[in-house]
């Protein structure tokens, strides 16, 4: 029974991974990624790590990939002409390299055999020891990760800021407040050949305040 589940979700994961890599439209690849994440979450549960699995869906699939989708829509990224940059040297070497890598890993895992893993006991799956370990031996990394996330948030907001914000006004002459120069390509009409995107909510909020 359990091997069936493994086989099913492993295959699902592989197929969706391939779709992520090969599909032309970024939205499809993103959704395929969600599927892959979901199937790996199931595999985590199979490997006796339900907490990680749940967390994976909650954090990874639930938030990060949504962010991707969000950005894809924000930038209105069109479907690429062709998925790959043509089968140039770059692609072939990449595939060859990946194949070699896979070969090596396979060789190692095959050589190291597969000792039977200890049967899962309820307490081996329990959360309490995991949490205990997290907040004792790994407290420092935990704090550091917290800091990292803070920095990431700040970095992201600064990087994605609309040009001309605090960097002093841009353009030749002073603008009457409210009559913003339409340099932001995200605004409609600024880029003829690029179809405009509906004005995102958050920018209107900026104008108001």
């Amino acid at each position: 029974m359990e091997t069936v589940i493994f086989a099913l979700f492993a295959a699902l994961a592989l197929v969706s991974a391939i779709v992520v890599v090969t599909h032309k439209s970024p939205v499809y690849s993103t959704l395929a990624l969600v599927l892959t994440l979901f199937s790996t979450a199931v595999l985590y549960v199979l490997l006796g790590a339900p907490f990680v699995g749940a967390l994976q869906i909650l954090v990874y699939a639930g938030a990060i990939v949504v962010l991707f989708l969000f950005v894809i829509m924000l930038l209105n990224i069109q479907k690429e002409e062709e998925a790959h940059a043509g089968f140039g040297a770059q692609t072939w070497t990449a595939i060859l390299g990946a194949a070699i890598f896979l070969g090596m890993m396979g060789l190692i895992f095959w050589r190291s055999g597969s000792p039977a893993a200890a049967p899962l006991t309820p307490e081996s799956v329990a959360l309490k020891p995991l949490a205990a370990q997290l907040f004792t031996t790994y407290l420092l990394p935990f704090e550091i990760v917290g800091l990292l996330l803070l920095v990431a948030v700040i970095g992201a907001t600064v990087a994605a800021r609309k040009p001309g914000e605090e960097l002093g006004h841009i353009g030749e002459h002073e603008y009457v407040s409210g009559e913003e120069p339409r340099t932001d390509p995200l605004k409609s009409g600024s880029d003829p050949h690029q179809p405009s995107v509906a004005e995102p909510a958050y920018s209107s909020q900026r104008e108001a305040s």
Partner: protein
Amino acid sequence: MSSVPVSWYLLLAAALFAIGTIGALTRRNGISIFLSIELMLNAANLTLVAYARQLDDRTGQLIVFFVMAVAAAEAAVGLALFIAVFRQRHTIDVNRMNLMRW
């Protein structure tokens, strides 16, 4: 309860990693490269959990949390950068971002 030998999981993870790498190296679109990288990270997580299971040591799972956190941070900053690049050059096609070319 898992009768499936752990090495299968490892092989799966390796395959996912390989696919992710191919994606990262071949795609022209910035976001797709990012997705492939997330895929590779995920493969790494799977390996970690698999070994945690085999060595019966929960540390593997702990590390997965940190990997996820880092992945989140990376995604956030990366996407912000892409937005900034898009603003300036109306494209996130990696081939056309070769300002550093000699």
